[in-house]
């Protein structure tokens, strides 16, 4: 039995690197420090849903095949295509992405990563407006105001709040954890007393407390770190917060612009904006201006709702305005553990962060035209390679229809909906568990992913599988050139 310390968790963009794993007989038996998703990954990755042999579609059914046959078939599919899509990449290592980009250039395809359906609009907006950002370490030690907008870290980045923001013990800012515990205890006692009174004196059945609270906005009077959540639902993150504003769906833009007006000392001549009374907004605007160092984290609540990149424009501009009054930074909450790495590697190799089209022989970038969902909706692609992703489960059905109509190659450690519809499927080793690599945290800090245990016999890494496909594609193309001449 051995313990491996300082393991980087390959699940979400927080990339926690303090995980401790206990290994017995080359198996992970215990996870320390991780969240629910981390534990599920490290303990469950080797479940019955894993497949260990390459699969190929014959007579409409997926059947086991050899690695060399699968490689050949995959290479043929890609080499013969006029306009193949190479999609996924955010859940693999930067090293594998490097090979993927080479392959995309070789076959003249479009290479896109999952940011196209998550923070793609953020990237477009950052290219327009710019982004004042920082590392998560700075936030942990210095931020005294933390805002999550359209983001629910409790569910999507479970340790974000206690590792990097409000509940972390920083050098200059203390954790707000104890205050939160006191608040929860007090509220539980209050609920119990109220429910007892109702049952004993009014003979009412036990029921949930009334949902809408009337009365003036609760001022944030507390000292120290403050946590504000702005979202369409009262998520668990919102319950933790010192202040929560519930914004109706698709109204974020109005609210952001109202904040901009308030920060610039302009008066708002209406009683409420996006259904939120102006005095609530004034209170938050005050807190924003008075903080020493604030940070706004935004999630897909902004990028997927009406306005999309324009919402991000407004958020970035709000932070620009705030920097005239105090110090403020902003950061997108990146989902997949290496989606930031995908943007970074794509950019240093091609000049563009996602949706890169090699069909003219040089890289071209025009999201809306060269982004994978648009290509699928226009029915232009004629084959696809999916690496470490599950677009059948994550794209709108209309886009998936065209994806599964054409030859489809999938490289993934687990069987998923996309693999079930594929023509060639390669099992791969888990990056960060069975093979090493590099990943970028959401604040663009690169971290090493460790190899903890050996992969099953015959199962290769994404990088190795891609290298073999690339070499096979080059052979086919060379043969064709010789035949043509």
């Amino acid at each position, binding site marked *: 039995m051995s313990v491996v310390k300082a393991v980087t968790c390959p699940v979400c963009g927080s990339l926690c690197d303090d995980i401790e794993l206990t290994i017995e007989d080359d198996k992970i038996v215990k996870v320390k420090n991780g969240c629910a*998703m981390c534990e599920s990954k490290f303990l469950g*990755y080797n479940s019955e*849903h894993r497949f260990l042999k390459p699969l190929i579609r014959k007579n409409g059914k997926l059947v086991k095949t050899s690695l060399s046959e699968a490689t050949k078939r995959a290479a043929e599919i890609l080499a013969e295509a006029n306009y193949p899509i190479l999609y996924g990449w955010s859940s693999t290592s930067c090293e594998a992405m490097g090979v993927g980009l080479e392959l995309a250039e070789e076959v003249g395809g479009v290479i896109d990563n999952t940011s196209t359906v998550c923070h793609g*609009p953020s990237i477009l907006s950052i290219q327009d407006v710019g982004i004042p950002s920082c590392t998560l370490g700075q936030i942990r030690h210095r931020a005294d105001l933390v805002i999550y907008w359209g983001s629910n870290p409790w569910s*999507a980045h479970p340790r974000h709040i206690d590792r990097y923001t409000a509940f972390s013990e920083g050098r200059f800012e203390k954790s707000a954890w104890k205050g939160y515990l006191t608040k929860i205890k007090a509220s539980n006692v209050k609920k119990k007393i109220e429910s007892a009174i109702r049952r004993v004196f009014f003979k009412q059945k036990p029921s*949930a407390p009334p949902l809408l609270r009337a009365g003036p906005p609760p001022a944030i009077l507390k000292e120290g770190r403050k946590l504000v959540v702005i979202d369409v*639902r009262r*998520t668990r993150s919102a319950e933790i917060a010192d202040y929560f504003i519930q914004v109706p769906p*698709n109204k974020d833009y109005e609210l952001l612009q109202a904040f901009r007006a308030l920060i610039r000392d302009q008066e708002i001549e209406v009683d409420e904006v996006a259904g939120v009374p102006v005095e609530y907004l004034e209170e938050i605007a005050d807190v924003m201006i008075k903080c020493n160092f604030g940070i706004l984290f935004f999630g897909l609540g902004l990028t997927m709702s009406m306005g999309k990149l324009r919402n991000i424009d407004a958020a970035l501009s709000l932070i620009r305005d705030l920097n005239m009054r105090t110090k403020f930074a902003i950061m997108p909450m990146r989902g997949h553990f290496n989606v930031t790495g995908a943007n970074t590697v794509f950019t240093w190799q091609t000049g563009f962060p996602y949706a890169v089209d090699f069909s003219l022989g040089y890289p071209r970038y025009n999201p809306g035209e060269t982004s994978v969902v648009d290509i699928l909706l226009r029915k232009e692609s004629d084959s696809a390679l999916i690496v470490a992703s599950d677009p059948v489960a994550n794209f709108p059905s209309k886009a998936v229809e065209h994806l599964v109509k054409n030859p489809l190659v999938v490289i993934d450690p687990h069987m998923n*909906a996309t693999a079930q519809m594929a023509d060639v499927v390669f099992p791969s080793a888990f990056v960060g568990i069975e093979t090493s690599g590099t990943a970028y945290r959401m604040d663009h800090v690169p971290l090493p992913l460790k190899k903890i245990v050996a992969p099953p016999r015959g199962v290769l890494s994404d990088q190795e599988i891609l290298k073999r496909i690339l070499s096979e594609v080059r052979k086919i193309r060379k043969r064709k050139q010789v035949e043509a001449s």
Partner: protein
Amino acid sequence: MIANKLQVTLLTGRTIEQGVGKERGKASEEYIESVSVCYMDPEDLKRLGIKEKTNVQVSTEHGSVVVKAVKSLRGPHLGVIFIPYGPWANVVVNPETHGIGMPSFKGISAEVEPAPDKPLLSLEELLKEQFGKE
């Protein structure tokens, strides 16, 4: 008064159950169960006259899918329903990218109606129904 159907706004998004399920395996029961549900405000369930765990049919102009209604603990969000990201949500989300590559996954106008007699499809059945391929 009990309504036959409700006009609602559909949100899709992440839940911790979906996050845990996807790491366990996309074919795992945990994952399938976590993404074939629709979180509704308790008041909306009352307005439809149904109990929790009844099948409901969610329809938008892009498609229609049967999911299991679950009482939302994240209320109040009257008139707003929430389906976690996954194959079921995809049937009804708006593919429109507004020229920037990003489909509209949140804030879609939808109709929800009780469908106690309609079956909740398995992943295989759903994929077969949607794309005619297994």
